[in-house]
Each structure stands twice: as structure tokens, then as C-alpha cells.
């Protein structure tokens, strides 16, 4: 009941799903309870230091932070490999509460040096707490879930900042450093929230947990610093992320210096400064909160990650130009405000999205190095640069130029990372299966196998048929000894009139006879020459006429005839008999005739072959024969396929044949059929186009036609989905329901097959297969891949079909899609 209320409440502001409401709220509170106290600690950090030493103390403070953070990282990584995440996070929190209490105790009585110690302590605190927070999020949610909820979690942090800032503004002048007590109180509350989060995580069903590390990563959840460094170094993509983090941190530090220097120049008095910082951070967080709530998701959704990446450096570039020209507090507030609010909202979300294609194990490892070390290292580098610039008394304008240079580098790195992102997403998901016929055809020479079986069968039928088969088989270069042996064993039925019997050579191997006594090429030439003789054609015609006159009892003779014609010249008079044999009532006779037609490849046989597609017993042979005709059969088959008055089964089979003739002409014929207002061959045509695309990726498909059909199928999918949900659950509708479900599934796969015609086929196949059968993670990667490779015009219609949502939401969304889908 309470959970339902909570769900309904949260569902209004975030795309939360049933069952996620409690953990979502806990994570939101976790972030709130670390940012609110941190904002208090930070405001005091700035004002205490500036009041004691002025802005010149900032570069050494940055540097000291960087160095000390290095030690903390090493120490942290040592603890991390030894203790559980929960224990590490809670004990860190207790450590900061206890040490913080010491600052609170000694601030009034100790000299200025304590401010210099307090500065790095506050910075280390935020690094450790933030890292722990994101580690917790990654532990509980998969990338896709995290992406959906990240905006809401971020808002928790930003609200915490607003709350903390307001407390400072209101109380700074009254209680000054006693504000720290509020901060520690909130940290204590946070410990209980963390405990609740991990208790919740322990109850998660197995499938909801992040994938277990594989054997090659036996202890990936406990990562050492060196291990973390190497994992970043080995991945070009992670190196790029690391560089972006470094450069953005240098820019951020430089902007922080410019801002604090101008605050120190403009605002006098420690408590005034503390109050200013309180108000500034509060308003900053408020602005960032609205930015996060109202714009971040929309910006990323609308422009995609590739464009949004450039927004921050562009705005900061404008601000830096402004401050270089007019170094005033107002300009500094704009620059610092933009930098911080973007970094807390957009940049944070982008950074987490950039980690999506990285496996959870690798991401966890990399984050230790990037977030905990590199961030501070960059700050150290910037501190040294600032020390140099301030040593030479160069003003704020020069420091702005430093920012501008690094902003240029940032843009270039973003350019590279945006390209890497999609390619690494593609690498992350694998093909789950290959199509059945492709798998068979890759591994098996079907024609050869069939011939071997037919040869064996022919032994029982007649010596002529057997000889014809053996002759045919001998044309194959790679006749294995095993096959030779099997074929040479004589059958009892053949004894009466076999070649062996005739010469009293019981048990003689026919194959051996062939191979020992004949030069294969000479034999082939002799046979061809004999069959080309007018005299031969004349006597055989008489024989054929006699055989064809007879009815069923001459089946074997007809088979012999059909097989022999396949060895003759295509223009020989005997070839004319083939059409009659193809149409013979006996499927066996027809089969041999079809095979011979495929050898002779005369266009006049095509209609008879198409006719044979209608008979299930000869369908496969007719398809195979037409395939061998290749491009010469396209026009006749295209005409047949397009004629709706013809038999539907045969037309479907023709489409299947066309799929094996990979030419532009075939594609055009199939697309014309697809483009018809009404076609009863939609699925067959799509399957064939998909097959051609997978075999010949370079053939161009008319995108306009394919896209139009994609939209039509999406419409169909939405309609069926809605109708299915609205269908009464009564028993009488069971059959209809099944039918609709089947149609839904066919439409779904057809949409993907069409997408594969104008987007990289392998990527679409990977995405589809992972959506249908993958794990929760691979589904998330697949959707992410589609999100990145599909253009907006199609993405906005395809993703709603895939993304997991409640049925009422889907119905509402599909109604919307039906309204806006192109006519």
C-alpha cells in the first residue's frame, strides 16, 4: 500500500519501475546526505583559507590536495581489496566524522595553518564520498537502469547542495564554524541510509545483480591501484575518458581560482565570505537542479551523446573569453556557476553514459584510477601552472587564456571519444546465432551430399542410373576414400544386371574400375562426343518416345532418361524432352529432370520449374535449380512473383529463390513488391532482402521505400499491441490472442530486418538478437547501441517498442506514435 503510494509519487518525476521505488528513494537520500554537509564544509573551506592567506594560497592548497589525495588513493585501494564495499563506505564516513570533529574543536584555538590542512581534508572527503556513491549505484543498477534514474539521483545531490548552501547563508554569521556540527549530523544519518541500501541489495534476486566476474577476473570487485591504472592504460577508450577528465579538471581548477580570487578581491570579512559562498552554492545547486531536472535528459535524448558532449566546453569557452576581457566578480559568478552547474548535471550524466559500453568489472577498476587519482592529479598539474602564473604576477586574464587553451584540447578529445563510443558499444554485444541455412551451407556441400545419397539409392534401382551417378560423382575432385568404399559396395538388387556380374567380377569395386581403367577427362570427352552424335540423338529419341509413352511402370527408365539428358548439350533435340519429364507425375522423375534442367540452364525450363515450386516434394529441388539459373531467371521469376493471380505458395517460393540471387536487379524487384500498397508477400520479401543484405552488404537498397515500410510496420505493431491489450481475456478469444501475439512477433522482427537494410546489418542483427535472448545487461547495451546508431527520425519510433515500460504507459505511447507516424 505504502509502496504503491511511493511508486505513484515517484513515477510522476522519474521513470521508476514497480519494485524500484524504495531503492531509488534510498539512493536519492544517500546523495542528498553527502552533498548537503559537503556544501557546508566547502563554504567554510573557501572563506577560512582566503581570509587567512588570500588567493595566493590557493595554488599551494590545490597542490597539497593533489599530493595528499595520491596517498589516500593508495591507502584506499589497499583497504578496498581487503574489506567489503559496505564496510569501506561506512568506515570512511565514520573516519571523516571523527576527523571533522577535531577541526571543529581546534578551529577557534589554533593558528592559520589548520586552514591549510582543512582544505585538502575537505577535498579528499568529497572525492572519497562521491566515488563511494557512484560505486554503490553501479553495484545495484545495470547501465540502462542507471541511465534512466541518474537524473533523479543527481537531483538528490543538487537538492542537498541547495539545502546545505541555504543553511550556511542563514547561519554563517551566527554560528560560523559550528555549522560543521550540522554536517556531521547529516553524515550520521547517511550511515543508516547506506546500511539500508546494502541490506536491500543483498535481497535482490540473482538475475538483477550485476554479472558475476568471470574466471579471468577472479577478484575484480577488489581492485588495487596498479591494477586499476593498467586497466585504463590497456583500453584506448578508457584512456580517452581519462584524458577528458584530466583536461576538464584543469579547466575547472583554473576557473575555481579565477572565481575565488575575484571573491577575495570583492567581498571583505570571513563570515561575509562564508555567507556569500553559502548563498552562491545554494543558488548554484538550485540552478543545477533545474538544469538537471528539466534539461539534461531532454538534451541528451534530443541531441544524443555525441552533440551534448560539446555543450560544456562551448559555454565555458564563451565565459572564459568574457573574463579575459573583463575580469569582474559578475563574470566570474557566470563562469563558475556555468562550470559547476554543468559539471554537476550534464557532465556527470554524460560521464556515466560514457561508461555504459565498458564492462562492469572494467568500469569499476577504471573508476578507482580516474575518479580518485586522475582528478586530483589534474588539479595538481593546474596548481603548478597557477603557481607559475601567480609567481610572475600575471593577472586573471592570463589565467583565462590558460583555460581557453585547455578547452580547445577538451573539444578535440570529445570529438575522438564520440567516435569511439559507438564502436566500443558495437564490440560489446555479440551475435547470438547465425541463420540456419547459412550455418548449413557454410559447413556442407549440399549438392555433393545429395549426389552421394542418390548414387547409393540408384544402386537399388538400375545399373544405368548407377553408372550415370558414379560418372557424375567422379567429376568431383574431392571424392573421399570412405565415400568411394560405400558407393562401391554392391547391392543385392543390382546383382542381376550389374557391370560386375556381366564380367563375372563379383565384388569388384565399380569406382576402382572407373579410376583404374579410365582417364576421367578422356571418358568425359568420349561421353560428350557420343551424346552429341546425330545418330545417338536419333536412337535415344526413339527410346525416349517409347519410355514417355508408357505410364507409371517406366518410372526408372524415365529417371535414367532425365539424368542422362543432364549430360547432353543444352541445344540437343533430347533436351526438349526435359520439360515433359519435369512435369512428370512421379516426383522422383521430376527431381532428376529438375536437376538436369539446372545443368542445362535453358530459359525455356523456368516456367516448368516455377510450376514445380507448388509441390512440396519437388519444391526444394526446384528452388535449388532456379538458384543455379542465377540472373537469367530473375525477370521471369519477378514477373511471376508480382502476379497476384498466381498460386501464392509458388510466389512465396519464388521470393525465396530470389533471395539467393544477390544482384541489384533482384533487390529492385523485391523492393517494388514491398512498396505495393497491398502485398501478400511482405514477410517473405523482407526475409529475402535481409538475406541478400547479409550476403552482399554493398548492394544499395532504396532507403525511401524501406523506411516507408518500416513506419508502416511500426504502425501495425502499435495497433496490434493496443488491440491485444484491449481484447477481453475471455476463453473464446484465446485463438485470436495467439494469432495477434504471433503477428506482433513477426512485425517486430520485420522492423529490425528492414532497419538492417539501411543501417549496418551486423549492428542491427546484434541488437535484435540481444534484445530477444540476451541478459539484462546485453539488452541494455543493445538498446544503447540502437540509441546511438539510429537517426532521430526513426529512433523515436523504434525505441518505444523495445524499452521496458508498464502496459498502460506503452498503450499511451503507442497511441501517440500512431498520431505522429508519417502517413
Amino acid at each position, binding site marked *: 500500500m505504502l509502496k504503491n503510494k511511493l511508486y505513484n509519487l515517484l513515477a510522476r518525476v522519474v521513470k521508476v519501475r514497480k519494485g524500484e521505488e524504495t531503492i531509488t528513494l534510498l539512493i536519492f537520500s544517500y546523495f542528498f546526505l553527502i552533498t548537503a554537509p559537503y556544501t557546508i564544509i566547502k563554504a567554510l573551506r573557501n572563506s577560512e583559507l582566503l581570509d587567512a592567506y588570500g588567493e595566493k594560497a590557493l595554488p599551494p592548497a590545490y597542490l597539497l590536495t593533489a599530493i595528499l589525495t595520491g596517498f589516500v588513493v593508495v591507502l584506499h585501494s589497499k583497504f578496498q581489496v581487503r574489506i567489503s564495499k559496505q564496510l569501506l563506505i561506512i568506515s570512511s564516513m565514520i573516519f571523516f566524522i571523527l576527523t571533522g570533529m577535531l577541526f571543529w574543536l581546534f578551529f577557534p584555538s589554533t593558528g592559520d595553518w589548520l586552514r591549510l590542512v582543512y582544505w585538502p581534508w575537505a577535498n579528499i572527503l568529497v572525492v572519497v564520498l562521491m566515488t563511494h556513491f557512484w560505486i554503490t549505484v553501479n553495484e545495484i543498477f545495470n547501465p540502462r537502469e542507471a541511465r534512466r534514474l541518474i537524473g533523479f539521483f543527481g537531483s538528490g545531490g543538487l537538492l542537498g547542495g541547495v539545502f546545505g548552501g541555504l543553511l550556511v547563508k542563514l547561519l554563517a554569521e551566527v554560528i560560523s564554524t559550528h555549522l560543521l556540527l550540522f554536517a556531521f549530523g547529516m553524515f550520521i544519518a547517511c550511515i543508516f541510509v547506506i546500511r539500508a541500501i546494502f541490506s536491500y541489495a543483498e535481497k535482490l534476486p540473482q538475475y538483477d545483480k550485476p554479472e558475476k566476474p568471470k574466471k579471468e577476473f577472479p577478484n575484480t570487485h577488489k581492485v588495487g591501484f596498479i591494477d586499476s591504472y593498467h586497466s585504463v592504460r590497456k583500453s584506448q577508450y578508457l584512456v580517452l575518458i581519462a584524458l577528458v577528465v584530466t583536461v576538464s579538471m584543469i579547466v575547472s581548477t583554473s576557473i575555481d581560482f579565477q572565481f575565488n580570487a575575484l571573491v577575495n578581491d570583492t567581498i571583505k570579512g570571513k563570515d561575509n565570505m562564508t555567507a556569500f559562498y553559502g548563498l552562491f552554492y545554494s543558488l548554484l545547486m538550485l540552478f543545477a537542479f533545474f538544469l538537471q531536472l528539466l534539461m539534461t535528459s531532454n538534451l541528451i535524448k534530443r541531441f544524443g551523446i555525441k552533440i551534448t558532449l560539446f555543450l560544456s566546453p562551448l559555454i565555458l569557452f564563451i565565459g572564459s573569453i568574457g573574463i579575459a576581457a573583463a575580469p569582474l566578480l559578475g563574470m566570474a559568478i557566470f563562469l563558475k556557476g556555468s562550470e559547476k552547474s554543468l559539471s554537476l548535471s550534464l557532465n556527470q550524466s554524460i560521464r556515466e553514459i560514457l561508461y555504459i559500453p565498458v564492462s562492469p568489472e572494467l568500469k569499476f577498476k577504471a573508476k578507482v584510477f580516474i575518479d580518485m587519482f586522475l582528478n586530483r592529479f589534474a588539479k595538481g598539474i593546474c596548481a603548478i601552472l597557477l603557481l607559475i602564473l601567480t609567481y610572475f604576477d600575471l593577472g586573471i586574464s592570463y589565467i583565462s587564456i590558460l583555460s581557453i587553451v585547455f578547452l580547445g584540447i577538451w573539444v578535440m578529445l570529445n570529438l575522438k571519444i564520440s567516435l569511439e563510443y559507438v564502436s566500443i558499444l558495437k564490440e560489446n554485444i555479440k551475435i547470438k546465432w547465425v541463420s540456419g541455412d547459412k550455418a548449413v551451407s557454410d559447413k556442407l556441400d549440399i549438392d555433393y551430399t545429395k549426389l552421394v545419397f542418390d548414387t547409393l539409392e540408384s544402386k537399388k534401382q538400375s545399373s544405368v542410373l548407377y553408372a550415370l551417378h558414379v560418372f557424375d560423382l567422379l567429376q568431383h575432385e574431392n571424392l573421399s576414400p570412405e565415400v568411394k568404399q560405400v558407393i562401391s559396395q554392391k547391392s543385392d538388387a543390382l546383382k542381376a544386371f550389374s557391370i560386375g556380374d556381366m564380367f563375372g567380377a563379383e565384388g569388384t569395386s565399380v569406382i576402382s574400375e572407373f579410376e583404374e581403367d579410365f582417364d576421367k577427362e578422356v571418358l568425359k570427352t568420349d561421353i560428350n562426343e*557420343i551424346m552429341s552424335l546425330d545418330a545417338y540423338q536419333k*536412337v535415344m529419341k526413339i527410346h525416349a518416345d517409347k519410355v514417355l509413352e508408357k505410364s507409371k511402370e517406366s518410372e526408372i527408365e524415365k529417371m535414367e532418361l532425365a539424368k542422362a539428358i543432364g549430360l547432353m548439350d543444352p541445344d540437343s533435340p533430347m533436351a526438349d524432352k526435359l520439360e515433359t519429364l519435369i512435369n512428370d507425375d512421379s516426383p522422383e522423375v521430376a527431381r532428376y529432370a529438375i536437376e538436369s534442367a539446372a545443368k542445362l540452364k535453358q530459359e525455356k525450363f523456368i516456367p516448368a520449374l516455377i510450376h514445380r515450386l507448388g509441390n512440396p516434394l519437388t519444391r526444394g529441388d526446384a528452388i535449388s535449380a532456379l538458384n543455379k539459373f542465377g540472373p537469367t531467371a530473375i525477370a521471369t521469376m519477378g514477373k511471376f512473383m508480382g502476379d497476384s493471380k498466381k498460386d501464392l505458395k509458388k510466389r512465396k517460393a519464388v521470393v525465396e529463390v530470389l533471395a539467393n540471387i544477390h544482384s541489384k536487379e533482384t533487390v529492385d524487384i523485391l523492393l517494388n513488391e514491398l512498396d505495393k500498397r497491398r502485398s501478400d508477400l511482405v514477410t517473405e520479401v523482407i526475409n529475402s532482402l535481409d538475406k541478400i543484405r547479409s550476403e552482399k552488404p554493398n548492394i544499395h537498397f532504396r532507403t525511401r521505400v524501406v523506411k516507408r515500410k518500416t513506419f508502416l510496420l511500426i504502425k501495425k505493431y502499435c495497433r496490434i499491441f493496443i488491440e491485444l491489450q484491449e481484447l477481453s481475456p475471455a476463453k473464446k478469444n484465446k485463438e485470436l490472442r495467439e494469432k495477434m501475439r504471433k503477428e506482433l512477433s513477426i512485425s517486430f522482427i520485420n522492423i529490425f530486418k528492414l532497419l538492417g537494410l539501411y543501417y549496418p546489418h551486423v549492428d542491427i542483427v546484434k541488437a535484435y538478437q540481444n534484445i530477444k535472448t540476451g541478459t539484462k545487461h546485453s539488452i541494455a547495451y543493445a538498446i544503447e547501441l540502437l540509441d546511438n546508431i539510429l537517426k532521430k527520425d526513426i529512433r523515436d519510433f523504434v525505441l518505444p517498442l523495445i524499452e521496458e515500460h508498464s502496459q498502460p504507459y506503452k498503450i499511451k505511447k503507442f497511441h501517440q506514435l500512431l498520431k505522429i507516424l508519417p502517413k
Partner: protein
Amino acid sequence: MEIDLRKKDNIVIFDIKGEIRRSDMGNVSLHNIVKEQLDSDNSRILLNLKKVEFIDSFGVGEILASFISTQDIGGKLKLTQISKKLHVVFEITMLTKVFEIFKDENSALESFSKE
């Protein structure tokens, strides 16, 4: 190629020796000799190929032409003692379906007498 003719029970038996090939054909061909016999009202012919060492497609053509000529006048041309190789060639070309082929001369002669 050498051809010896003998007659038995009104059947002309052709004892053929050597090779029946295009290059070895002189002025006289098997078909011509068969035609001569047909012209002399000898319409029952048995080709004994026991001593034929080699026969090429031309040779098969000669036998086929002889067969057709014999058929045309309502006669009979049969074969005996053909080599293993030739039998294989005849099976592949389906000529075993057209020609009457016998293991030995006696059974061939017997078949003529039964008609």
C-alpha cells in the same frame, strides 16, 4: 581395324579386331560394310567385339549408324563380348537400353533364333 565376316544360321557375324577410331579408318568403315550386307539382304547382324582393343566416340557412332541402318530396313543388329570399358560407356550413355548386348556369341545367336 580389321573385320572378318562369317555367316552362321543366316546371321552375319562381324569379327572385329584392333581399334575402332577415327584416325584408323581407311576407305572402309564399319557402317559401310554393314550397309553392304544389308544391301545383300543380310539383315541379321552380330558384331563380335571380343578383339577390339579400343573404341572411341567415332567408333560408337559407327556402331550407332549401323544400328539405325539395320533398324530402318527392319533388321536386327546385336553386340557380343564387348569390353568392360565399352560397357561402362554404354551404360552411361544409356546405349545398353538401345542395343542388345550378349556375353557370348552362342547366347546372341540363340536370341536371333528365338525371334
